[in-house]
């Protein structure tokens, strides 16, 4: 048994951390949150040059062919730096489903352009009446001469305003089970009939409402099989959960370090507040819980990278890590007192992201049933 990252992973970790420390300071993150585009094209270019966009894309499609755990290492650093941009949506919600469900032709066409930074991707799943279950997906895809016509509304679509392509989870048939009859389409974002609106969100992370009005999609743009898309989307949700956990672990570790550093400096009653037991105990609890989050997340990421079945481990990782990140940021606020609450101080970047990450891709309640079944409850 070995719990450590490989040499290569450690190098990747250090390179990423060093790059982001210099090129993604919190000041920039703050600016990006108020920026029209919501990302830094300069950073996007550097990320491309460093091979980050193609990290899990096989070499034959222009990437570096690294594995899911390697991606996790990188995302942990992005989480630590609270990076804002369409990296997650492009790589996790775009490249990974394409790799998983795409035809050879689709992979040859799209993946190299993702690896070289040319295309930004996103995925639209949630709807006004639908969360992360299949049964409620209502956006309709009706067949016609050339392919399909899409009608409906999607919500919480990250970076739809910038994306070149949007993966759309649509209903092509009504069957007894909601999961049957779902099809995934790769839709050109510039198609006629698509309109989008950026929602004002807690993290200013460009989640959009996207309305599809008679949007034509050629049938070659079906990703995977007709009516059989849900299994692939479930895998996409699982991978998104785990990669989100990696970001959360990075963010949580950063928060812990910030908090400990503050505790050593801030003096009240003639001594650093870090010498008070209440504060020490809060910090000890945070540190222990974060270590746990790192382990369950690494386990899930590693198992995915090895192609091992791990539905239970993924559910455990997202349940625990989402809850931990949220509660340690809350604890950190408590420890910091008023200063932590100001926009000048950096804690708010993390506490907002913690909540958003917790409720996205399923919170602990969502994954509970997977866990219940996983432990053998009938």
């Amino acid at each position, binding site marked *: *048994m070995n719990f450590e990252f490989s040499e290569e992973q450690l190098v990747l970790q250090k390179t990423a951390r060093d790059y982001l420390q210099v090129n993604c300071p919190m000041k920039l993150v703050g600016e990006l949150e108020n920026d029209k585009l919501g990302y830094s094209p300069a950073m996007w270019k550097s990320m491309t040059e460093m091979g980050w966009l193609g990290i899990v894309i096989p070499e034959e499609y222009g990437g570096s062919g690294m594995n899911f755990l390697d991606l996790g290492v990188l995302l942990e650093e992005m989480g630590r730096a609270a990076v804002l941009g369409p990296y997650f949506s492009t790589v996790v919600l775009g490249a990974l489903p394409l790799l998983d469900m795409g035809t050879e032709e689709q992979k040859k066409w799209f993946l190299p352009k993702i690896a070289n930074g040319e295309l930004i991707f996103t995925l639209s799943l949630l709807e006004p009446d639908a969360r992360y279950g299949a049964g409620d997906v209502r956006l309709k895809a009706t067949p016609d001469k050339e392919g399909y016509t899409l009608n409906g509304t999607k919500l919480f679509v990250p970076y739809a305003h910038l994306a070149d392509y949007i993966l759309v989870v649509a209903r092509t048939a009504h069957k007894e089970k909601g999961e049957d009859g779902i099809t995934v389409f790769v839709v050109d974002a510039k198609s006629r009939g698509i309109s989008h609106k950026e929602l004002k969100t807690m993290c200013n992370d460009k989640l959009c409402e996207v309305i599809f009005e008679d949007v034509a999609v050629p049938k070659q743009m079906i990703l995977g099989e007709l009516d059989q898309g849900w299994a692939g989307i479930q895998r996409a949700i699982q991978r998104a959960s785990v990669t989100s956990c990696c970001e959360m672990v990075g963010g949580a570790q950063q928060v812990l370090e910030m908090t400990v550093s503050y505790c050593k400096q801030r003096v009240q009653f003639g001594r650093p507040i870090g010498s008070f037991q209440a504060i020490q105990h809060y910090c000890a609890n945070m540190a222990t819980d974060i270590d746990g989050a790192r382990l369950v997340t690494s386990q899930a990421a590693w198992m995915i990278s090895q192609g091992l079945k791990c539905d239970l481990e993924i559910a455990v990782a997202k349940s625990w890590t989402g809850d931990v990140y949220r509660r340690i940021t809350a604890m950190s606020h408590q420890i910091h007192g008023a200063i932590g609450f100001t926009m000048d101080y950096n804690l708010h970047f993390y506490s907002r992201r913690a909540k958003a990450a917790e409720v996205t891709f399923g919170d602990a309640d969502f994954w509970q049933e997977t866990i219940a079944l996983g432990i053998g409850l009938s």
Partner: protein
Amino acid sequence: MDLVFSQDEQAFRRQCKDFFSKFSLEEQNDCWRVTGLLDTFTEGDALVVRRMAKKLAKDGWLTLSWPREYGGQEVSTTRRLIFLEEAGYHRVPILSIDMGVGGMLWISPLIMAFGTEKQKKEHLPPTGAGDRIWCSGYSEPEAGSDFLSLKTQAILDGDYYVITGQKTWITAAHFADWCWLAVRTQKKAKKSEGISLLLVDMKTPGIEVKPIPTTEGHHSFNEVFFENVRVPKENLLGKEGEGWSIIGKALSLERSVNFIHFIGSMRRAIEELVNYANHTRHGSSLLAHDPAIRSKLANMAVEFEVARLLAYKLCHSSSPPHHEASKVKLFVSDLIAKLANTATYVLGPYSQLSPGTTWAPLRGAVEYTYSMSFAPPIGAGSNEIERGIIAKSGLGLPTDR
């Protein structure tokens, strides 16, 4: 990174399962009560403990991880983990809870590391053979978490140390053969510097053991009084004044063992609760279909997985710093308490029924386990102390003094 067991390790686990299931069955047939959800209480029955120790010692199970030069098989860390986890899963108490045979797991390795050749020859063979049961004398009425305030003194008089004082909460002292005793040999400005470790034959004149019954009328703990007990000076382990550092190592070893044992027993407990829920009806519906029960058990499964990985990782770290063991102790002990509590919600009013009574589900184990559940967050280093260690040694927060 590699988080699964190899084929060989899986085969070893099957071997352990085989051995422990036969073992448990034999013991149960011989009136050993499986009372706890997380452990087995042998009623501090000396005969039962000794018999178990002998059975475990046969075929070398007790000394699996010992160096070959002392008769062990030097099994890998992972195999040791598997062995202890399976012992916990099969609720074999001897390796952890009763501690009586703990001599095998941390006392012996420290005798190997710090002992004289004479001490090794004297203690290792009988301990490894299950013939020498140990207890450890740490706590005193005035020295619990404040361990360094211990007062039991050992004064050198010619060729003997003369021990006077009182220890408390000593598990298994009422039947142990020898005692791993923390004494004060010098009064120093820095309290930690005057502590020494003596190996004491419990048959030495002047030692009196008084039982301390706890919840359930359970007898495991004792007060031990030392009245001018003369112990040969050769029984000093290491050097005078070196006791505190040896004890630090002992505590780390003890904790790493306990955690793995509990990982096994918690896994078993969750399985039993799931099985109970799957087979118990309340009116027309199955308990397992109650969303609140599903939720509670799912939450336990999540925390269990966290605990398992924390404990596994600690086990696989060579010489981990103290505070890493503290994190595991903190998390696992809190989880034990939560799990014991959760079990009572699964059973509802039935959780009140004691072992041996009619209608008691799961052998009354839930009642027993809940009543005992206040102990783990306190014993072997209270969780408040552990948090202090994590904060100060682990995170570098300043001392509060």
